[in-house]
Every structure is written in C-alpha cells, then in structure tokens.
C-alpha cells in the first residue's frame, strides 16, 4: 500500500513542482538566476530520488538518520566545492570570472536545495510529523516572498509588481492569486500525503473559497492596516471643529517598524524646489497654550490660514500669506493612502479642491492643493516686523503664552546675548540664535523619557536635551514666545527634496511625519524655523522608494498618456479578453459538436444499410448504456459486458451475439435485416428506460460526452 502510494508518478511530480517552486521563490532574492535554477533542479532531483527510490534496495536499508547525515555531508561538500570554484584562480582563468561565479552559485544552491529536500522528503516518508515540516516549509517560502508587499509597498516583490504594473493590472490581485495558489498547493501537498480520494472535491471547495475572497476584494477593497504615525496626523477625518485632546508627546510609542509605510503621494503640477532642502506639508498647528502645553486652537480668530475640513468642493483658507512676490503658486495633487484627520498641503496651502479618485482601492482621498510656496531667502527675513496687523491683543497674547517657567526666558535671553549688535533687535536673528543652540546641543532620539512630565518640553530643554521633533519644536516655540516672537508648532510632513529624484511625484512615508516651530512676520506670514539637531541617536533615513513613488504618482496622475502606455502594453502582450472569448467559443463549439456527435450516433442506425447495422446499432446501444453509467471496463470482453448489463438490458445479449457474429467473420449470412435490428434497438431502449431511474435518464440526455465512454 505504502509503496503503491509513493510510486505514483503524477502526485510525485506535483509535489516536486510545488516544493521546487518554493525553493525558487526563496532563492530569488538571495542568488542570481543560475542559483535559482539550480535550486529548482536540485529540489526536483531530490524529490524524484526519494519518492521513487525510498522503497528500493539501497535506500530501503538505510536509516533515516543515516540518510539525513549523508545529505548534510552532500551539502557541506557542495558548499566546499562552490567555495573552491570561486576562491581559486584556476576556474576563473579557465573560463571567465562570471562563469566561475555562476558555476559556484549553481553548485551551492543545488547542494542546498537537494540536501534539504532529501531531509524533508525522507522525514515526510518515514515519520508522521515530516509532512507537517514540509508543508510549513512551503508556507514559509510563500510568506517570505509575499511579505515584501506589506506596509503598503504595493510594488513589491518586484518580480510580480513589475509584471502587473506594465500590464495595467493591480499587483494586489496577482498577489492574491498567488496566495490562493499557495493555499491550493499546500492543500494538494497535504492531500497527496494522505492519499486522499476526495481530492478533487476538496480542491473545488478551496478554489471556491479563494475565488470568493478575490470577489470580495474586487467589490469592497483590501482591508487597510491601521497605521499610526508619531504625530497623530492620521486617523479618522475630523467631523466638525472639535479638536481632540491628545498628548503629542509619546514615549517609546515611536517604534520604527512601519516607518517606511507610504502615507500619501504628491504629484507636483508646478515646478518647485525648496530652498531649505525639504518639502514641508502643513496639516495643522499647535498654537494655543491650554495651561500645560500647546494645543489646537479653540478660537476662531487664530490660525485662520489653516483649513481644517475636507469638503466636496473647493475650499480656501480665510487668511492668505503675504509677500506674493516672494512666493510661487504651486498646484499639487495629493493622494492619501491612509485616512487623515485634516487635509495637508505644501507650505503654505491656500486652497484644496477635491478631485476624482482614480483608484478607489488604493487612495482613501485625492485632492488638489494650491499653495503659495516660499521662495525668499535668508536675507529677506531679516529686519521684518512681527505679528499680523489685524490681530487683536488677545490673539497676540495667545501666540505669546508659554508655561509659567522663567527658565525659558532666561535661556533665550542668554542665547541672544551673543548676537552681533546690528542684529540684537532683529526677530529673525533672535529666532535663528535659538535654533542654532538647539541644532548644536540637541540630540535627536526616539527613546525619550519626557512624556509624563508636566512640561515635557521643559524636561527636555533643561534636562538631557534628548528628544525628537516634538520636543525641539515645543522648546523652540516657548523660547520664541519668551522673546516676544509670535510662534506656533506646525505639524505635518517634511520630506527631503532629494526624495523627488528628478520626477514630479513625491512619496510621503510615515517616517516623514514632523513638527516644527513657525514664527509670524507681518509682511510674509508664517515662516518655518526648524531646528535640525546635529547629533542623532537614531537613524531615521529610509531607502528612497523611487519605483513605488513613481508608480503611485502615475496612478494618481491618471493621465491619458499613462492610459495610452498601458494600452500599448496590453496590445503588445497577450490580450486577456480575447483569450477568454476564444476559450468561451471553444467550449461552446466543443459542446455543440459533442451533442451533434451524440445524437448523430443515435440517429444514424435508422438510416444505415443492413450490412452496417451490426456496427452502428450496437454502437448506438452502447452509447445509451454509457449514458446511464454502464460502460465496458478496460479488458472486459463484449460478452462479459452484455452479461453484466443483463439486469438493465436483457436483450443486449442478443444484440451482442449478432454484432460479434458479423464482426468476427461468421459465414452465416442469414442474419437480421434492418427491421429486426431496429426492433432490437427499440427493445433495448425500452428495457433501459424501464430499469433505470428517471434522474439517470434525464442526465443521460443532458450529458454531451456520454458517448466518449462507449467503446
């Protein structure tokens, strides 16, 4: 039984193919093509070796431990050989260095996959837990491959992403198909191991489940992971004007696990390059001191430049920045990949306008932002007056309020004491002095311990000077205010200008969430004075995601040119729709021709000559019997068959005798005439009708391929 089970060629091949493909996907990121190919071949080799040889003589006698030991030594041998090939000059001299490298990779991966597969297969064959390990292995291979897709990296893994995107398909559907395939393969593996007889049935159920999953995603979209950024920018969109009380300072909540997760994508419609090296996107601001720290303002006459709501139509800020000659209008399309509380735009945003969402599955919200982006330089800020002309005294006071802690003023005063005489009264120079102090002395770190102090900013500034952007910006703002400079903490995103990489789209990732101090100049508006600590304890740099950035940008832009590009890609590759149509037509044609043949074979005996009756009549009756599920087994003689179906059609014996007499060369010429044949046929048909259930007869009529069974 066991031997019969394992020596079946087809299940063995299926299993080998599944395991080999998991080796292939595993090795893809670790080696070159030759290595992947080698691992595939090695796995196939090992599978066939074990499955076809384990019950034969040499392997049958070896113990499991011995086989595993042998395969491990084979692995070591392979690794040794590979290292010899690459480390000695002989082979690279003989052929080329590339060739010897490829050869070494081939040897190495062949050895790895072959030996591991031997271990897996032997355990699966010999022990009852072995197949579990094997299935786990395949599952892990799939998971590792597809895990690159997590955190919104929709273009990964590149193999799949590139394939899908050049054809205008959302990679997620392909990945899901991949996942379904993985599930089915795993199920197949399981069932092969159990020699399951109802395999097709289970496959159908699993396939249905997978397809319903795909269907669900098509209709309702993928569930998005709940991402949190460090600044509370994301979350449910704000309903109404109520600001939430939330501590912006968080200890050790700032885990950097999903820091690369894309949050939004921006497509610049106008050319703009920031002078300070970073694109600032302002979403909101902390401006009102609530007794313990700065918070969203509750006053309607403060922060009138901020837009707090999404609307379906265009919405403009009620207060526009000044110094239009020093600003350039920038239109940018923004696609939010994660829900945000409030819209954000490139500093300084003056209007938002909702746009049509090109991809509902991908973008939570898309809109155009209109900004007056600053182009002034350092010098332009010197010698400016502070505050807005139409501010009331209360608003002035709000922008100058700070914790009741004299140290802020003392420190700030000490910092501006060193200013050159011509700058002692200049607000920007004072602010710059404060920023410089923080730049030089502050230490950037995410592992701060200030959150539960009454005044985290004070704890930071007068303590270890170790914190992250929130601490820096709060401390700076308090010091600005102590010097009489109206200031607030802007929050949003800050993305290095280099990330744009020459394109027009810019990817905003979770790591780019930022807070910065701003001060208000009368003729300019809110100006960002962002401290940039020179010492940092944490690496907040990320790899530029240029591909993803461009991909999402293209998706958001949804240009006709991009559509054209996709179409051109589609026509040059295989046309799915056409294939489906052809398949459909083929199926239809097959069915039609099957029915034609079926009814022709039943009808033709009534038209045929007497000397062909023996063959055609017999065939027609065989068809009818096959339709109700009675057909001759392989190797069964016609007489035996007639005997077997005697209960259903007793006259079949007579028909068989007459048929065989003519087919096997009886010289007896006074056989039946056409009428007798017809009579025999109708007798048998009646017998079949009498002796079978109605549903079987209905099925017999419907089944177009019943005649394939009659032989």
């Amino acid at each position, binding site marked *: 039984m066991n031997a019969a089970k394992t020596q079946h060629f087809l299940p063995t091949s299926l299993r080998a193919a599944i395991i080999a493909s998991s080796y292939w996907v595993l090795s893809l990121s670790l080696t070159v093509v030759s290595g992947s190919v080698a691992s595939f071949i090695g796995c196939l080799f090992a599978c066939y070796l074990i499955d076809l040889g384990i019950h034969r003589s040499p392997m049958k006698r070896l113990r499991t431990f011995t086989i595993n030991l042998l395969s491990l030594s084979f692995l070591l041998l392979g690794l040794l050989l590979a290292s010899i090939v690459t480390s000695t000059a002989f082979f690279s001299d003989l052929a080329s260095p590339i060739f010897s490298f490829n050869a070494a990779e081939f040897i190495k991966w062949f050895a790895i996959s072959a030996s591991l597969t031997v271990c897996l297969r032997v355990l699966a064959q010999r022990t009852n837990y072995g197949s579990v390990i094997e299935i786990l292995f395949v599952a892990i291979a799939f998971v590792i491959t597809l895990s690159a897709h997590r955190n919104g990296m929709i273009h990964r893994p590149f193999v799949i992403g590139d394939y899908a995107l050049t054809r205008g398909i959302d990679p997620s559907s392909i990945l899901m198909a991949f996942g379904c395939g993985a599930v089915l393969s795993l199920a197949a593996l399981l069932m092969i191991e159990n020699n399951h007889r109802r395999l097709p049935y289970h496959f159908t159920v699993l396939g249905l489940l997978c397809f319903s999953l795909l269907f669900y995603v098509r209709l309702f979209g993928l569930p998005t992971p709940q991402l949190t950024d460090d600044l509370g920018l994301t979350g449910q969109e704000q309903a109404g004007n109520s600001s939430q009380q939330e501590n912006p300072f968080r200890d050790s909540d700032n885990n950097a696990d999903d820091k690369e997760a894309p949050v939004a994508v921006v497509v610049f419609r106008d050319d703009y390059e920031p002078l300070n090296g970073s694109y600032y996107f302002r979403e909101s601001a902390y401006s009102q001191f609530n007794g313990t720290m700065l918070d969203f303002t509750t006053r309607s006459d403060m922060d009138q430049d901020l837009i707090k709501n999404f609307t379906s139509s265009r919405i403009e800020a009620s207060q526009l920045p000044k110094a239009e000659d020093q600003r350039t209008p920038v239109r940018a399309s923004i696609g939010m990949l994660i829900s945000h509380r409030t819209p954000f735009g490139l500093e300084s945003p003056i209007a938002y306008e909702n746009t049509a969402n090109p991809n509902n599955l991908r973008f939570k919200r898309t809109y155009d932002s209109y900004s007056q982006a600053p182009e002034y330089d350092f010098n332009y800020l010197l010698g400016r007056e502070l505050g807005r002309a139409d501010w009331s005294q209360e608003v002035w006071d709000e922008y100058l309020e700070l914790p009741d802690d004299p140290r802020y003023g003392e420190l700030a005063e000490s910092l501006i004491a060193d200013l050159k005489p011509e700058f002692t009264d200049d607000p920007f120079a004072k602010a710059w002095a404060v920023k410089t102090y923080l730049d030089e002395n502050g230490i950037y770190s995410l592992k701060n311990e200030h959150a539960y102090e009454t005044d985290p900013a004070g704890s930071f500034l007068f303590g270890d000077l170790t914190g992250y952007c929130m601490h820096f910006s709060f401390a700076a703002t308090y010091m600005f205010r102590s010097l009489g400079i109206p200031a607030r903490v802007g929050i949003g995103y800050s993305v290095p200008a280099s990330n744009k990489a020459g394109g027009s789209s810019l990817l905003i990732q979770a790591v780019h969430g930022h807070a910065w101090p701003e001060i208000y100049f009368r003729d300019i508006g809110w100006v960002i004075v962002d401290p940039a600590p020179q010492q940092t304890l944490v690496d907040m740099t990320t790899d530029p995601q240029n591909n993803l950035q461009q991909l999402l940008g293209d998706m958001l832009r949804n240009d006709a040119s991009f559509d054209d590009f996709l179409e051109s890609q589609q026509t040059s590759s295989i046309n799915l729709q056409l294939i489906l149509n052809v398949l459909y037509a083929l199926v239809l044609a097959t069915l039609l021709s099957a029915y034609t043949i079926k009814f022709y074979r039943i009808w033709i005996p009534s038209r045929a000559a007497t000397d062909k009756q023996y*063959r055609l009549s*017999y065939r027609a009756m*065989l068809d009818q019997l096959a339709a109700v599920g009675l057909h001759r087994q*392989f190797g069964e*003689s016609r*007489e035996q068959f007639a005997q077997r179906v005697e209960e259903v059609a007793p006259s079949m014996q007579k028909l068989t005798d007459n048929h065989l*007499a003519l087919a096997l*060369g*009886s010289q007896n010429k006074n056989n039946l005439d056409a009428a007798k044949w017809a009579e025999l046929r109708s007798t048998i048909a009646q017998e079949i009708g009498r002796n079978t259930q109605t549903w079987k007869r209905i099925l017999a009529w419907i089944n177009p391929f019943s005649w394939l069974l009659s*032989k």
Partner: protein
Amino acid sequence: MTPDSITEVTEPMPVSDTEETSNTTKIDAAVDVLNRLSSAVKQQVLGRDDVIELTLIALVADGHVLLEDFPGSGKTTLAKALGEAIVDDGSDKNRADFILPFRRIQFTPDLLPSDVTGVPVFDSNSNAFHFRHGPLFAHVVLADEINRTSPKVQSAMLEAMGEKQVTVDNITYHLDALFFVIATQNPLDLVGTYPLPTPQLDRFLFKITMDHIDRESELDVLDTYKQRRDLKQEKITVTRDEVLFAREQIDAAVTISSSIKSALVDISRNLREDERVLQGNSTRSMVLMLPALQVAAALRGRDYVSAADIELLLPRVLGHRIELAPGVADLNKVLVDAMRGPMEQLARGTLA
C-alpha cells in the same frame, strides 16, 4: 444426471460432404456428435461436466489432456467411459484390426519404451520378426500416473503424441487418426516421480485440475454406482468416424477472425515480456489452441470464435506451459494482466 441429456440416441449421420451444406447444419451435425459423446461419458462420470466438456474439446481438437488429481477421483472412469463410447463400426475396411477403442497403460519406473510402443518379436514359424503393437495403438489411451515412469518412456510418448506415429527399429508405424491420450498425475505424492519435461508438457493441449465434486454429485455417485457398473445397460455410442467427421466439420465451418489470432499472439508476447514469467508459452501452444477454440465456439452454437472462447480455454492451455518466476504464485493474475490489453483491442476492433 438429468434425463433429457440422454435422450438422443444414435441417428443416421447426415454424411453429406459432397453437397454444399450451410455452416449451421455442419455445426449442428458436429455438435450432435459431441453431445452424444458427452451424454455417454456423463452416464458414467457424475458431477464433472466441465472436465468432460474440456476433454471432448481436446478430443475433437486433436489434442491430449493431462488430468491432475488425487487417486479415486474418477480420472480412469472418465477415460474409460470415453474410450468405450467410441466404437468402431468396421465401416472402414482399410483399418487394421490391431487398433482398439481403449487401452490403459499404468506407468511405473521400470516401464520400457517398447512396453508402450510395441516390439518386434521373432516368429519361429515364419523365421522373421514381426511387430507386436503396443498399447498406444488405440483410439483413447489412458496414461495413468505418467510422471511415475522414466524420462526414456516419456520421450517415447513424445513422438506418439506429437506425430501420431511410433518408430521402432527404424520402422515407422502410424497410430490411429483419433489417437487421444488422457494422462493423469498425482499432484501431491511426488516421491519417486519424474516430473514431466517441458517439451512433453507442451504436447498436452490442456492440463485440467480436477477439484472435488460437489455434495449432491458425490451422493449421486454413491447412489448409482451399481447401475453404472451394469454392463447390460444400453449404452450411447459414437463411431470413430463420426468423431473424425465432427472434427472436419467444425474445422471447416467455424471461422477464426484475424483479430482473434492477433489477440492470441499479443497475449503470448505480453506473457513473454512479463517479468513475473520465466518462460512464456510456445508458438505450438497457440497452433494447438486454434482447433480447440473452434470446438468451444461450435459447442456454444457459434460459427465464429469469440473472446469468450479465449477466456474459457486460455488458462487451461497455458497453465502448464508457463513457468513463473520464483515467488510468483498467482498464475491467474499474471494471465489476466497479460490478457487485458489484447482483449481490449479485440473488443474495440469489432466496432471499427
């Protein structure tokens, strides 16, 4: 025994070779002879209808049978009944009178070839040797316990069975045209026996293993043994010429289509290629089998050989001819495996 099986009593034979008779009549005539023979044997042997049928097939198909059974199971009775049912009505004037209907040879280790073939004896009256015919000169010869004699005698049987002749002192003597050997051997008591060599076995058309008869038949045997021994009872007989006539008629009337022949050849080839088979069957076995197939078909009222005949006879024909590899016990399974493909071909061929 059912009474209706003995109803037919000898009728004048429709000896009508000259005119063109239809196949059906030819077969009917031949089957009539066979039926009468079978009735005659069944009078004496109870519960062995299948063995009797096979024996008659072999008789008409010009073959010999080897019965394998324990003592007292009716082998001799069967052979004797058959031999006695075939009588010589003396219509043929050319035949020598030394041919007897039935002879029995009890094979022993010290038997000599001349004991079965005959020997030239010096006649002092005529001062010359003249041949004394051995027991082989008969219609039906029962070779009892054939494996108890030496290979020397067995090989003397070879020529007789294969060529229907014996050669003594370089003179060849022809045996009767109906020469039919029923040999028996005991499958269990093998001490001091000489197992038949393969070529000798190949001369037997069938090897028939006789199982114990069923309970009812055994009771019948006990009930009726006296009546059956009663020599005054009217006996159904068939003449030697009628048997030869049936042989001719069947051969002429029953068709063997080429697809049947190719099925036979394919089965043989399959068997020879099967790794469970050490030695496959000979071509001769197939040649010997053809008339047997015809007789089997005729017995079932057909004038053509069909797959059912092959299925009936093949195990009997090949059983003693095939040598299985060590460790393989089930000949039937090997046969079924070898037959499946060719039989499928044969069945499909009828629709082509």
